[in-house]
């Protein structure tokens, strides 16, 4: 087990290295730079800024320097969006917000999605199944830029149950509407995937055997079938989790949440390399960890695999 973890750790570092390299060169290939502005920046000012930030050096040199800094754990300072500020300081403010919101969204999405999928699978091809799947599909088809404003308008403005926008770290009421908006899509995906996984498992012999033994249906479903049925949703859940907790620009914009998503988009709009690199590396690390955890959960769900490896 220790070897597996070590192996994955090494692979993860390699992933981050490749990611940092690709990101660096992708950003530098953008058709615009961080020292441009809507109102033209005088050329002598631009030259001076390029000099200040080392943009006048050959690209390979800059890449080597950047990599060196990253290896020492220095993300650098923002070049444009919040010029002069340490990226670590910016992320220290924004990431906890995205994390809290994402966790809340997942807390809503996972139980709802899995429960809906299980119910639909058990009542397969009956009215309940169709109803649950139709609602789930609605959740997938209605994008968050439609659901978000509708929720905000309805529960925020008309009913005034929740604030329509804003964020207070310890006030749950600000979190509900964005979390629901963010979690709805994942819940819908999860329910569809859980249903298909469960349907596969419910066919298998050992379920028949269990039923034949006279075990209660709910026990059969929860104890025996759920394990196998969760294999497809768990594979989806890894990346979905990483994506959800690392910020969503649409939801953050609709509900005025100070998370990473909007910062990241602004950074891309202005080619702010340091502020792009930080979130990318965070997201990359999350993906690596989440996918590793998903693989572990799969191993646990599937005893056959364990004996194989």
């Amino acid at each position: 087990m220790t070897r597996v973890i070590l192996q994955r750790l090494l692979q993860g570092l390699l992933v981050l290295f490749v990611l940092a390299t690709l990101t660096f060169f992708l950003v530098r290939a953008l058709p615009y730079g961080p020292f441009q502005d809507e109102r033209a920046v005088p050329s002598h000012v631009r030259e001076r800024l390029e000099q200040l930030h080392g943009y006048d050096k050959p690209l390979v040199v800059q890449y080597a320097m950047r990599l060196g800094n990253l290896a020492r754990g220095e993300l650098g300072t923002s070049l444009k969006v919040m010029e002069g500020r340490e990226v670590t300081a910016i992320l220290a403010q924004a990431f906890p917000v995205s994390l809290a919101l994402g966790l809340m969204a997942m807390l809503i999405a996972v139980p709802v999605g899995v429960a809906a999928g299980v119910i639909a699978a058990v009542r397969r091809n009956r009215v309940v199944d169709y109803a649950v799947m139709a609602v789930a599909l609605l959740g997938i088809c209605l994008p968050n830029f439609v659901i978000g404003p509708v929720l905000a308008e309805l529960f925020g403005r008309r009913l005034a149950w929740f604030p329509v926008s804003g964020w207070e770290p310890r006030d749950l009421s600000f979190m509900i509407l964005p979390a629901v908006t963010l979690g709805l899509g994942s819940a819908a995906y999860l329910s569809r995937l859980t249903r298909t996984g469960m349907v596969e498992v419910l066919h298998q012999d050992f379920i028949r055997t269990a039923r034949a033994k006279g075990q209660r249906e709910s026990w059969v479903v929860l104890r025996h079938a759920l394990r196998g049925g969760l294999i497809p949703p768990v594979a989806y859940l890894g990346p979905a989790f990483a994506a959800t907790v690392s910020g969503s620009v649409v939801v953050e914009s609709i509900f005025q949440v100070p998370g990473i998503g909007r910062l990241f988009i602004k950074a891309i709009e202005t080619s702010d390399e340091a502020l792009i690199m930080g979130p990318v590396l965070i997201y990359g690390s999350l993906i690596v960890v989440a996918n590793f955890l998903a693989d572990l959960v799969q191993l646990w769900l599937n005893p056959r695999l364990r004996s194989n490896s």
Partner: protein
Amino acid sequence: MLELARFTAILMAGCSVLTGCRRETPVESANREGVLLVGNSAEPRALDPHLVTGVPESKILSSVFEGLVADHPSGDDVMAPGVAVRWEHDADMKQWVFHLRGDARWSDGEPLTAADFVFSYQRMLHPSLAAAYAPMLYPIRNAEAYNRDERGRMLCGMDPAFPLGWDILGNANFRGTDATSVASPATDDDDRTRLRREFAAKGLDRLDAAALRAILDDPDLFDWPDAVPAAVRGIVVGRLLAHAEAGAPDLFDRADVGVRARDPHTLEISLREPMPYLPSVVRHFTWYPVPRHVVLRHGAMTDRFTGWSEAGTLVGNGPFVLNTWRFNHFIEVVGNPRYWDAASVGLKAVRFHPIENPYTEARSFLAGQLHTTYTLPPELLGRMRERHPEFLKVEPYVGTAFLRLNVNRAGLDDPRVRCAISLAIHREDYCRYIYEGYQPAQGMTPDLASYRGPRMLRHDLDEARALLADAGYPGGAGLPSYAILTSRPHPVSDALQQTLRLLGLRVTIERKDWGSYIAAQQELRFDMAIGSWIGDYLDPTTFLDMWTRGNGNNNTGWDSPAYEALLREAALQPDTAARFATLVRAERILLEEMPVVPIAWNSRIYLHRPEVRGWHPLVLDNHPWKAVRLDP
């Protein structure tokens, strides 16, 4: 599972508590406390007046700083006393004296003197600070040379005792040229050719000590105009070398930049040209003073982002002081007890919310979270007119929405084609249906102060078609297909496409992300581009200066010597009426040549609560926060 149960319990409790006691909206409690809640679009990049360029930043800065002249709550053209109690100028409007109030203080209690202003302008203009908005200070005598670090000019050209006048010496290569055009004698070896090219590309001003020494040893390495005698060449290089060897000390005094503290309360500003509207210009945030003692405590004068302008460190001289800065949440400024006019400040605090999504902002406003919004999505204008006329504000603004034409493109290089495009646009309809609430543009410059432009924009489709035929493209035949460059989804691109098809033009729409859209315009990689311009101060030059050769905001490839001659002529006229008449003639040339097709004059369209007092329509939209009050 236990976690889930607990979570649900908290959730339910939260809901019931919320529905139970959310009776008072943020606006209502803010009314009681005297706090103004302002929608301010974007998170400021910084709060250093020398380093920011955006409108959201300017709103916050105007609460914590105050310039020599202050904004008036009800009249853009009324110059209210700020740090200066009064000011006077000489007959040709080039020498200005500002008398500062004796009781002016920084928010930390230090006295605010004329020296602070001199320091501020020096810092803003210092080449090492690389302030993007430094050109705002170029009206000051020699400010441009100093900011561009024109060393040759400052060390030799401005020296009255120098053996050769700048009118001749200035023709030497100080700023660098296209190196490939540098011819090298056949006797040169590769090394010398390389050096010669390198030096020529950089220009004398930017050569380092080693390069200058090399030229001193071997004068042939640098090409001089024949009019500059060899002896003078040696002196020039010698002075540059001495300067470089001394570690390139600051040349502010040497450059004789036209700003001087006569005494602690008297500031003299000398301009390069007459400027009757200087008081209007110095209201801009680039002319605010920064606290010398605080800036230097946090770092060198020319260090960018030393942390002197953060919450807790920022010291200002405005009616408010920075209290809280929570990234992407809000910025709060509270009353400054040391402000000279603290007694007349009507608010306890102002809170700026950086809400970028205009729909979210409108929703927040209607839910009672804001007193005033930054903007209103055009789609909501009709609905607000119907449902909430008491909140809706539509006011003239110094801005113009236009279509840039790249005059280097085939077809668009013909002014007749460009004018045909302008004639095809039905501006009244555009303002009724597309730029709702805007005014049909009648020229490039909207009406401001007493300036009225030439008003020659019309809609006449037949004449447009005739012009196109006259240019050799009847019915658009023979013209290539053009793409309208745009960034944010706005129906104006669709409308223009339909309009231009009426002329027989083949037009596509090219959407780009914001960065690529800006870059494509500045590098002239487009055919037509939707754009707009917001004026910085109350003078037509803020709309006309940009269409000149080499101006970074021109982006059309167009220039006209006649146009620029008129602008220069106007710049030398101290009399406003005469100056405006000249500018009208200049604008006429612009509209006859039509490198840019004005479509609409902007309006400020926003939502605003009626209990906010002391807030009047202003063309520049700079509402002095100290005059605002809240009806409880």
